[in-house]
């Protein structure tokens, strides 16, 4: 308190010094994230804000609906740590928190956490007393009226009206307003406390509420306001010291308003503070003058004409700083004109501005038409002036009502600071994530749908070591994120008609490489487990790719999953100048696969090239079985894989802004699905066939000799999943994404390739002749 007053003094003395930038606090993130489903109750929950905050309350509403008051959270910098009870049971719990930001305004929110299972949405659990806000608003308006009309009026009485004494009527009104204001101050104080801890109106005089209110910056405002009101009463009662006390009163008003509130905490703080001080002081002067002025005009005679003359001589010197300060405050608080109608704060501002415009118009009429008239037609002019000044007074009171409403709306400046967080919630279609998990005796092909953060389901197809379908008695699927400290959550899967096992009810709070585990009970004594990574995308970063280019290590939608019509995903290039690429796969040694590349009109970008699209420059990302392998930096890459397995290698070209290159309706990419076996290496003596895939018409037959390596280049006019039996290769093929199958013709026979459509249509036959 003392320090703040001292700093006030330094600012007044014109000493410029650096102060930390304070603003209205906004929650940036929580750990664990809201909506998280956890295996065990967390011991702590951490809330991270955009600035320093002071926690005032935390409560836990358990799954049973019980409310537990938690110990006051601790704040270290912008991080607030809430210590959770040790006996939190299963189900969905709601952590309700409240903090006060440095501008004195409380903000609150909830974190929804589920332990084990989700038993509710957690929405609508926390309700605050609906009576608190209107009560705060009334108390504020009463304090404003006491300050501006009451105490502000004493300045007019002592400095403008004097030596003419004030008429009795306005004097009485001013005294009543100031006394009401003084009474309203402790009420406002207690209500502030109630609001800070989120209690009911009935708890208004509870120790917690008062103690919390005492620690908020609003307390300083109220103390100075009290001093201003008392000084105003003294000035009114003792006209001899009227000038001194009314000066204390009006400076007190300016100081009181600049000690708390959104505006005075906007960076640069020292300037904002000064601007608020000037604005409040000049408003007090003008608004305070209106009531006594109106009654002066009720009396005829030279005395009132002289008072009016003195007022009209002085008022421009007050109005100019008032308006300039007001405009500056708008510039500080509102980032763009669009915010005025998009936010509650802006709408209140618009109402205030309309009222103020009307006020200024009235003031101009008074000053330039009616005031000169008073010399010629005193009675008529006084009558008109009484009316206009009365109207001004009414408008001023309404403006105070509007301004008191700002207490409940954060300014666009703060909202925009949090905008990157809020706007990331934009709903977006996220492609599924795939993972092919394998161990020595067990495999699972798993689809996580959608493959982004939030609520997802996982479907697993169980496979034997050689890729055949595997039946199971029970299946559990678990997803965990060890990198983020998220324990695996296991869900029982249900067998679907098509033989896959589906587990619902996962909630993935963060993007990244999650650990996927499939546990299958094959028989009484045979349980098999396979674990591997699955990449979960952040829907917001997908959207941000085109806008910003956010670095090199995020994931791309590949092949058939790319939407060519989405400008966030692709860059459509001129086919003549577009880069091209070709990829070959050869098996140098069992399990060692060499990828060779030929690029045209393309070079690899470096950090020096920036993140904006430049034709012919970009990245090539290598994926194996849908999992990111590497960024390509040369025309070759070696893969070490199990020599016996199914693989799909995908390499796509992306621009510097990470959008995929597209030319002529096709992705500039290469996809090769290959079946490796330990018996013969791939890639020697390769025979190539072009195979258009169509589900209508006579399927073609491809005849090859046993022992050859076969390369089938599949193209399709529609998106299909094709399964080549015998070789047991399954690939998706799409118009924008042809795919190559590579395998050894090991065993003779006639094998069918089917499309996974409703009819399981054959699309081609492969005959391997001995």
């Amino acid at each position: 308190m003392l320090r703040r007053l001292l700093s006030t003094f330094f600012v007044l003395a014109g000493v410029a010094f650096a102060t930390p930038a304070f603003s209205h606090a906004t929650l940036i993130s929580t750990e664990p994230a809201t909506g998280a489903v956890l295996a065990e109750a967390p011991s702590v929950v951490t809330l991270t804000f955009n600035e320093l905050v002071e926690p005032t309350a935390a409560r836990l509403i358990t799954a049973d609906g019980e409310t537990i008051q938690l110990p006051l959270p601790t704040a270290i910098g912008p991080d607030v740590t809430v210590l959770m009870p040790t006996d939190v049971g299963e189900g969905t719990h709601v952590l309700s928190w409240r903090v006060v930001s440095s501008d004195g305004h409380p903000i609150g929110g909830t974190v929804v956490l589920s332990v084990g299972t989700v038993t509710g949405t957690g929405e609508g659990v926390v309700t605050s007393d609906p009576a608190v806000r209107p009560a705060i608003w009334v108390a504020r308006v009463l304090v404003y009226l006491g300050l501006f009309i009451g105490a502000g009026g004493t300045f007019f009485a002592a400095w403008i009206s004097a030596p003419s004494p004030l008429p009795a009527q306005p004097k009485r009104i001013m005294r009543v307003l100031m006394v009401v204001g003084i009474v309203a101050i402790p009420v406002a104080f207690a209500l502030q406390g109630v609001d800070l801890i989120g209690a009911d109106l009935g708890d208004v005089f509870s120790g917690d509420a008062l103690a919390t209110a005492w620690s908020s910056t609003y307390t300083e405002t109220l103390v100075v306001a009290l001093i201003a009101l008392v000084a105003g009463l003294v000035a009114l009662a003792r006209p001899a010291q009227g000038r001194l006390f009314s000066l204390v009163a009006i400076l007190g008003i300016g100081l009181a308003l600049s000690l708390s509130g959104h505006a005075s905490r906007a960076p640069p703080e020292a300037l904002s503070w000064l601007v608020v001080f000037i604005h409040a002081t000049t408003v007090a002067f003008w608004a305070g003058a209106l009531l006594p002025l109106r009654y002066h005009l009720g009396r005829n005679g030279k005395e009132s004409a002289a008072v009016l003359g003195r007022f009209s001589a002085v008022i421009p010197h007050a109005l100019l700083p008032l308006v300039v300060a007001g405009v500056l405050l708008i510039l500080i608080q509102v980032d763009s004109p669009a915010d005025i109608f998009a936010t509650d704060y802006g709408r209140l501002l618009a109402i205030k501005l309309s009222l103020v415009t009307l006020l200024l118009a009235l003031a101009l009429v008074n000053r330039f038409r009616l005031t000169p008239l008073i010399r010629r037609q005193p009675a008529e002019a006084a009558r008109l002036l009484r009316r206009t000044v009365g109207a001004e007074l009414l408008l001023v009171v309404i403006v105070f009502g509007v301004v008191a409403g700002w207490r409940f709306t954060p300014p666009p400046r703060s909202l925009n600071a949090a905008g990157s967080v809020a706007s990331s919630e934009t709903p977006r279609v996220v492609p599924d994530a795939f993972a092919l998990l394998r161990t020595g005796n067990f495999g699972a092909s798993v689809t996580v749908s959608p493959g982004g953060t939030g609520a997802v389901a996982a479907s697993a197809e169980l496979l034997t070591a050689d890729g055949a379908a595997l039946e199971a008695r029970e299946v559990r699927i678990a997803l965990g994120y060890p990198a983020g400290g998220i324990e695996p959550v296991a869900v029982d899967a249900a067998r679907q008609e098509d033989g896959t096992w589906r587990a619902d009810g996962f909630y993935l709070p963060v993007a990244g490489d999650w650990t996927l585990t499939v546990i299958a009970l094959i028989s009484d004594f045979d349980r098999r487990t396979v674990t591997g990574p699955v990449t979960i995308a952040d829907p917001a970063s997908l959207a941000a790719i085109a806008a910003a280019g956010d670095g090199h290590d995020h994931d791309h939608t590949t092949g058939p999953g790319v939407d060519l019509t989405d400008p966030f995903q692709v860059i459509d290039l001129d086919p003549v100048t577009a880069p091209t690429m070709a990829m070959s796969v050869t098996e140098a040694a069992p399990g060692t696969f060499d990828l060779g590349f030929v690029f045209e009109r393309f070079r690899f970008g470096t950090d020096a090239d920036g993140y904006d699209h430049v034709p012919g420059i970009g990245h090539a990302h290598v994926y194996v079985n849908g999992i990111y392998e590497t960024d390509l930096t040369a025309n070759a890459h070696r893969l070490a894989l199990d020599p016996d397995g199914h693989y799909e290698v995908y390499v796509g070209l992306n621009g510097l802004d990470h959008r995929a290159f597209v030319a002529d309706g096709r992705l500039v990419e290469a996809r090769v699905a290959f079946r490796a076996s330990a018996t013969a290496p791939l890639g020697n003596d390769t025979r190539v066939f072009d195979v258009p895939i169509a589900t209508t018409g006579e399927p073609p037959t491809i005849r090859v000799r046993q022992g050859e390596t076969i390369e089938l280049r599949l193209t399709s006019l529609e998106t299909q999943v094709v399964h080549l039996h015998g070789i047991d290769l399954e690939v998706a093929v799409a118009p924008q994404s042809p795919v190559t199958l590579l395998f050894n013709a090991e065993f003779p026979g006639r094998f069918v390739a089917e499309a996974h459509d409703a009819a399981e249509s054959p699309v081609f036959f492969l005959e391997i002749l001995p």
Partner: protein
Amino acid sequence: MKKALILATTAFACLTAAAQAHVGVTPSEVPGGQTTLIGFGIGHGCDAAATTAVRMQIPEGVISVQPVAKPGWEITITRGTYANPQMNGETQVTEGVTMIEWTGGQLPNEWYDQFWIRARVATSVEPHTMMWFPVVQECEGGGVNRWITVPAEGQPEPEEPTPGFMVTEPGEGGHAH
């Protein structure tokens, strides 16, 4: 400090829970070629429900298996042909007991009991290999514990590890009978 204490307590609770959660094997080392009494200890039921049945698979390489009579329990033996013939000294053994089932008893969650077999490790089994005995424990109310996940080296201990013993050189300790 308070937090550290809570963490320490939790860690301790986890440790003790893990220690109780196993199906214990006595002895933990069995020499090849000797007839040995092997006990499997069950220290708890399934989520506090009493144990009513225990099924155990006999691994390949464990021959001449006989369950020890156990009052209060019915014992069922399943015989089968081995996938790979085993050697009992100079004799080739191609079939034997593959599963033993104890049913009809009632072992409260709070009690401990051992299920004994007499058996011999075939001489064809290399010393220093583990013999794993997958066990399925059934309880009142339909609860099941499956002690069938073989612990892998370098991996964290599975939730329900398979009990097993180490085969040692013939004549190297153990209890010969």
